[in-house]
């Protein structure tokens, strides 16, 4: 007998594309209790696959693409718009997850499901619709070859009669179809599940899009407590100056502040301060030039999304989603381009093709460096020179990557594989951890980020763990060791950074990944608010200590998946480029003390010398079966 399932739909949809089978599934309640939701539940489900087939190719039809909401998704709680897409990553080979805002998550719950588990490979291009609990597969031959915006428009038009209103569409563009290893999935023409190549996994299944709509409503356990919390958080959001900055200037507001803190990389991470970016690429530049409107996600008053328009060539962009901070840097200072219109064009192309702007921009910046070194010829680029400061080459490469044409075919494999093919001089410019390109925040300026990148369960990420937000002073938690207010006072020493990283990862496994709250709105929740939110949603009493323990469980589970896939301690490192001191800027001459931080991290995490979570830790976290599988695997590898 199942207890009432507050805040959850209580069922998921299993989709076998090979056989065309759609099967609702009611997961055991322990799954919700122990793994909460979002990528927590997804990790547990993926582990069951990896334990059987540790060397599964991410493009194998058996690699499940798992799209999950959290218990907060679709409620009125500020920031409750997120959902996650998870699978073995074709870019990194290990656990992959990509967190996305917008509207698709809430609409999936309205359609009656907490998540989707998609396996197999459709015999022909297909899309999936889920309307009020009823799922169906449709021929998508007419959509194959279209970009994500065109697909969204067509499917919205086709399905709006189902409910008398537009549904939500989650679609890949041409990049996903072409199995570009950093392909993204796009919701509502501007909300992107970008990281770790989930769009390529979707493309490998010949699944072009998912359409969701419905009227299901999940009831929280304590509506009154949730309403009170919602009101308090909304008041705090209104008063918070960083949220005001996000509202006024979008995420690119960071560029103004952080260029002078040694945080913004330039010229493929070899220049520490490139002042002109501040005047030309930052939030205020966008505000006074190409910005035409702002947008928001479901249940969010911050409205950080930019709407831009470039009315003239050569970088014409129709009114639509504007670049975030990351794109302003990857297609801006990283290639010394100070033309914001060109950045907007590059961003628009990535969105339409379905490409992660971080990995795509970083790979292109590496190509610029290789061109300068003579490792790429003019002929190879198709006759477009890759010259620092000129974004024309970057834009041509985006087209080539999405279509896997010319040099783009090689770059579509991601920067690690590209550099490995091109040799040692190319490898010098590499900025990946575990195969994932580093985001645009420099660990030489904020040393805890070095440890966060090196030990993140997906590879270099600033959003998988809240270390970046704590270290830069945007967030703190009074009662959680290592995350206290003063932790941002000392950004360039190893002191307590391991503790910051461990607890930052653990709390974020709940807040950002399992509960699936937005990292911006979520900034104003205290640790007690998070515990209250989870309790009020699910009806299961949770303390801050419980959150940290469950977060620890999820981190270790994802780490275990990585270890089963061949990850070892040797992979917990920054690339040489990020460990080379800069000659200029606020962080000149500095690199993080990785040795000290990693040693403390290993001790706190109880990782063995191979980087595997120790048996005792896994067992304490209720992961006895994971421990058994992992350590049997370790013994086999040692033999």
């Amino acid at each position: 007998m199942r207890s009432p399932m507050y805040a959850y739909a209580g069922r998921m949809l299993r989709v076998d594309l090979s056989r065309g089978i759609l099967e609702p599934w009611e997961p055991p309640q322990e799954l919700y209790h122990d793994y909460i939701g979002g990528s927590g539940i997804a990790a547990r489900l993926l582990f069951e696959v990896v334990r059987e087939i540790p060397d599964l190719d991410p493009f194998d039809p058996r690699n499940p693409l798992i799209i999950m909401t959290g218990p907060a998704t679709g409620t009125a709680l500020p920031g409750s718009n997120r959902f996650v897409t998870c699978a073995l990553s074709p870019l990194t080979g290990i656990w992959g997850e990509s967190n996305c805002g917008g509207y698709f998550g809430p609409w999936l719950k309205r359609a009656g499901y907490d998540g989707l588990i998609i396996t197999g490979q459709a015999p022909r291009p297909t899309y999936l619709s889920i309307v009020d609990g009823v799922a169906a597969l449709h021929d998508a031959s007419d959509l194959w070859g279209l970009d994500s915006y065109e697909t969204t428009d067509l499917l919205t038009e086709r399905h709006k009669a189902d409910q008398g209103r537009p549904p939500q569409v989650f679609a890949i563009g041409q990049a996903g179809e072409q199995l570009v290893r950093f392909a993204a999935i796009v919701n509502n023409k501007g909300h992107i599940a970008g990281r770790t190549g989930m769009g390529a996994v979707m493309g490998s299944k010949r699944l072009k899009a998912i359409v969701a709509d419905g009227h299901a409503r999940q009831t929280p356990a304590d509506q009154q407590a949730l309403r009170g919390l919602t009101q308090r958080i909304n008041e705090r959001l209104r008063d918070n100056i960083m949220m005001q900055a996000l509202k006024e200037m979008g995420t690119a507001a960071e560029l103004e502040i952080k260029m002078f803190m040694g945080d913004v990389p330039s010229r493929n991470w070899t220049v520490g301060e490139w002042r002109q970016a501040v005047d030309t690429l930052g939030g205020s530049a966008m505000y006074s030039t190409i910005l035409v409107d702002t947008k928001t996600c479901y249940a969010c008053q911050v409205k950080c999304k930019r709407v831009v328009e470039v009315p003239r060539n050569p970088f014409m962009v129709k009114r639509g989603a504007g670049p975030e901070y990351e794109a302003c840097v990857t297609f801006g200072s990283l290639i010394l381009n100070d033309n914001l219109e060109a950045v907007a064009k590059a961003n628009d192309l990535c969105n339409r093709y379905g490409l992660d702007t971080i990995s795509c921009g970083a790979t292109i910046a590496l190509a610029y460096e290789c061109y300068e070194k003579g490792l790429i010829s003019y002929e190879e680029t198709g006759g477009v020179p890759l010259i620092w400061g000129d974004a024309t080459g970057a834009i041509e490469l985006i087209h080539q990557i999405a279509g896997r044409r010319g040099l783009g075919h090689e770059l579509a494999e991601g920067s690690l594989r590209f550099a490995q093919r091109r040799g040692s001089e190319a490898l010098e410019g590499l900025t990946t951890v575990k195969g994932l390109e580093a985001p645009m925040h420099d660990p030489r300026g904020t040393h805890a980020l070095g440890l966060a990148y090196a030990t993140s369960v997906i590879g270099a990420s600033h959003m998988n763990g809240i270390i970046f937000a704590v270290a830069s002073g945007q967030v703190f938690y009074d009662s959680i060791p290592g995350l206290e207010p003063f932790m941002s006072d000392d950004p360039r020493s190893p002191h307590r950074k391991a503790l910051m990283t461990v607890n930052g990862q653990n709390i974020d496994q709940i807040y950002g990944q399992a509960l699936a709250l937005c990292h911006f709105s979520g900034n104003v929740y205290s640790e007690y608010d998070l515990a209250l939110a989870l309790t009020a949603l699910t009806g299961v009493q949770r303390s801050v200590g419980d959150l940290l323990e469950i977060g620890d469980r999820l981190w270790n589970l994802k780490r275990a998946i990585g270890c089963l896939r061949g990850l070892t301690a040797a992979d917990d490192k920054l690339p040489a480029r990020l460990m080379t001191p800069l000659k200029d800027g606020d962080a000149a001459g500095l690199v993080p003390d990785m040795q000290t931080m990693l040693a403390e991290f290993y001790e706190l995490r109880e990782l063995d010398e191979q980087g595997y979570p120790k048996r005792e830790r896994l067992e304490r976290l209720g992961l006895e079966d994971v421990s058994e599988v992992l350590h049997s695997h370790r013994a086999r590898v040692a033999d």
Partner: protein
Amino acid sequence: MAIFKTRDELITCLGILYDQAKRDPRIAPKIKDSGLVIQFRYDEPEAVATIIASRPPTQEGAYFDVVWDDDPGVKPDIEMSMKADVAHQFWHGKVNLMAALTRRQIIAKGPIPKILKLLPAVTPMYDMYPRVLRELGREDLIIQK
């Protein structure tokens, strides 16, 4: 214990800094171009400094006026309130602005884009301020790097 013991001490140190800044071609033109009235409200000790870039300067060689008066007679576009100690650290380049705003060590009111746009313009003042203190014979107040 507060860095500046008296209001006069605060106005002497920060006053000279602002006086130099209002004539500095690296800093002042951008502030002048903003056309803003920016008010710094200090606490412990109390003092109010107002940068008036909304009208022509009254002093030759300056790009704008700086008035030390609780009521400068103009309405500020931007208000920045903080303890004088925080200002002292800020002009040394020692304040993480994001953290200070989050922790409300600095309380800012006014149009955010305009505030952020001025940040790059004032960064040369981080080097200028210790020099000013040295010239005043107040090496004791300089925060060592």
